[in-house]
């Protein structure tokens, strides 16, 4: 290449690089970090005809030092109100002067009153906002969301992170179904099936402790014990208790690992850890009715056995049989509850559509009302093939 031409190209390249530095693309609408509030959790309530949003924001200045200590209180709560969620989000700037950055949002808690207005009314804004994380856990509070966000743990981690981990662990350990924002939006958009959200509630405080010296602060002030059912239109319709919630996990094929406790009074108590779970829900389409068959096969590890007044002989088979019955009962409880609520919470229509699309087209508009006529049969197999660190000579 000739030196003059090479020089001209270098000049052009440098000119272009410098001109790019002056590009106003990022500068015009940028907001410095100091002018942003990093939102960790959002609570949505509805009162007096308006939505109240509670934001739990990360606030390291609250620690009083330059470092974030392990026991420091790093969060503060801000509320704003508006006729819609969008308006409340916009009004949040007026409350504290910083722009809300929801890209790191971990949890969205919906209060009961807001849920009664419909899930899409509460969550639609967050689905459309490109900066909001769609992996935020969505929780339901039977009271208000703001009191959940105001609860504090004493481990030094942010309450939002704690709420997120509680919800994730509850789902991963086969206790309560959990749902991320995009899953809730997907269910609401599909318009033909309901969804279950974990119910978060404050742990009742024991007011009987005699002195502050004896009082031990709880690790967590909130817990999950139930699931809230929402109709296909996104309206709250009922509660699933703990047994029904576990049954819902089996039916949704969301049970991956869990523990079962088998307790036979005056005989034994045993704990099983199910480490491998396979679930298949199949529709049985007959001319006059539709039923479903649930097949569950599990592999389990016997982690604890306490014998009382019982022989160890054939104990493994007995434990396995009782575990199978327990799982079947949980599934039946969930099925009965969903039928009573007349809501397809287990994607039954999707199963029918996969098997026979024409039949699905026939029944989709009336299916929820006829759900109580659908029967569920279960076949459960639990195989105990691991015994943990201690092996009793079962035969």
């Amino acid at each position, binding site marked *: 290449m000739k030196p003059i031409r090479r020089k001209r190209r270098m000049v*052009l*390249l440098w000119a*272009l690089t410098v*001109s*790019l530095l002056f*590009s*106003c*693309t*990022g500068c*015009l*609408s940028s907001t410095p970090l100091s002018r942003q509030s990093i939102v960790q959790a959002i609570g949505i309530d509805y009162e007096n005809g308006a939505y109240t949003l509670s934001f739990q924001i990360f606030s390291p200045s609250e620690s009083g030092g330059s470092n974030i200590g392990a026991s420091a209180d790093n969060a503060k709560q801000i509320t704003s109100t508006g006729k819609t969620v969008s308006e409340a989000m916009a009004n949040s700037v007026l409350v504290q002067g910083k722009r809300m950055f929801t*890209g790191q949002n971990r949890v969205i808690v919906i209060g009961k009153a807001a849920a009664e207005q419909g899930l899409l009314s509460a969550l639609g804004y967050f689905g459309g906002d*490109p900066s909001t*994380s*769609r*992996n935020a856990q969505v929780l339901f509070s039977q009271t208000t969301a703001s009191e959940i966000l105001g609860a504090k743990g004493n481990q030094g981690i942010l309450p939002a992170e704690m709420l997120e981990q509680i919800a994730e662990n509850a789902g991963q350990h086969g206790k309560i179904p959990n749902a*991320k924002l*995009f899953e809730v*939006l*997907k269910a609401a*958009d*599909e318009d033909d099936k309901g969804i279950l959200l974990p119910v978060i509630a404050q742990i009742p405080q024991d007011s009987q402790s005699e002195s502050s010296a004896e009082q031990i602060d709880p690790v967590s002030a909130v817990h999950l014990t139930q699931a809230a059912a929402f109709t296909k239109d996104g309206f709250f319709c009922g509660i699933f208790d703990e047994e029904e919630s576990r049954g819902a996990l089996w039916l949704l*094929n969301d049970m991956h690992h869990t523990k079962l406790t088998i307790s036979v009074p005056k005989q034994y108590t045993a704990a099983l850890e199910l480490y491998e779970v396979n679930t298949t829900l199949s529709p049985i389409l007959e001319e006059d009715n539709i039923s479903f068959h649930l097949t569950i096969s599990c592999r389990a590890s016997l982690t604890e056995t306490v014998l009382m007044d019982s022989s160890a002989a054939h104990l493994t088979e007995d434990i396995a049989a009782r575990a199978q019955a327990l799982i079947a009962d949980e599934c039946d409880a969930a099925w009965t509850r969903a039928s009573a609520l007349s809501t397809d919470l287990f*994607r039954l229509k*999707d*199963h029918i*559509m*996969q098997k026979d*699309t*024409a039949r699905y*087209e026939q029944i989709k508009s009336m299916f929820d009302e006829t759900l109580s006529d659908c029967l569920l049969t279960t076949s459960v197999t639990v195989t105990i093939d691991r015994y943990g660190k201690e092996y009793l000579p079962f035969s």
Partner: protein
Amino acid sequence: MNANARTHRISAPQLLMLLFLSRMFSVLNISPVFGTLQSGMTLLLGTLISFFLQCAFLFPLWLLSRRYPGKTLIGCAGDAGGEWLKKGAALLFLLMFFIQICGSLSAFSFFMTAIVFPKASSILLLIPFFLVLILCVRWGLESFSRAAAIFFWLFLLSTASICLCAIPNTDLLNITPLPTQGAFGGIFSAALGEISKNGELYCLLLLYPSLRTPQKAVHSGFWFLLLTCVFMLVTQTVILSVLSDFGMEQTYPYYALASVVDLSVLQRLDSFHMSLWIVCAFFRSLLYVFLFKKCLGTFVIKKKARAVLFYSLAVLLFFGSVFLADHPQVVRALNTSTAIVPTLLAFVFPLVLFILLKRKEKRNETNSPQKTHGALMGADR
């Protein structure tokens, strides 16, 4: 072939990677804003069928690249029908590339303002993009083909990571089966929609003389179509199995998938992937601007005059892009799923040219037995 000529040519794999990156932008940029999208098994089967249909489009390329490896489609038009056909073909391609470039730049701007910079002006987004585009076109095909070869692997790695991270969230129950009525119509519509977006088919007809071995153009074309088909099937399956029909209703379904997958502490990977998508937009626009400039050479031979004409038209391109960026309804109206244009430009027209050239050769052989078809061969780059 002397050493100087070789340095201005690219290899078949480079062409494949360049075309793939260019095609990827239209794949990643699909949006219900600009046209109806199919979903479920209809979409997957439509993608598969479009692959087989597009393979048929390689037939004229195979004929021309074997028989006339040194001439582009426009050069063949000149030999077949004289100067008027040559200039007519060049004008047609110019018009196509003009629309494609404006459409690509406006789509890029629309994506950036929808997802990355919601409050930014589209002009300020397009200015630096366009300036870099014009500069890179000056450096020639070989330069940006080499760059494409690097980004190709980064892009594949990025996509593979998205798909792997999405696996825990997949559920085949989310993929809706074929509808009971109108299934074939939906599949065919999806297939035609894919073909209508594949402008790279006729880019191939203009680029194959730039290959070191033009006869391998069909190989590049076939692997390009196959790789695109596999990519689309895999990513569409992942999107549908994670997000179901809800995913195809998002403004950018591929972006929606990237925004919901995470791997442990690695979250919001969509921002990383977006940077690679911007690169895809760049290569697509670059390829079209390069070919636009090549077509201009048909009308203006002198280098300085061609440069003046090119830069003048570049200004028009820029303002056309800005206009479309601010009027998505116009883009929607221009966006057609009929596949007529690629069929005419990439199949019918080249086939007709080949037939005309063969007839002309026969006539020449009849009139003058000493002349061979080699007289029609010649470098035309």
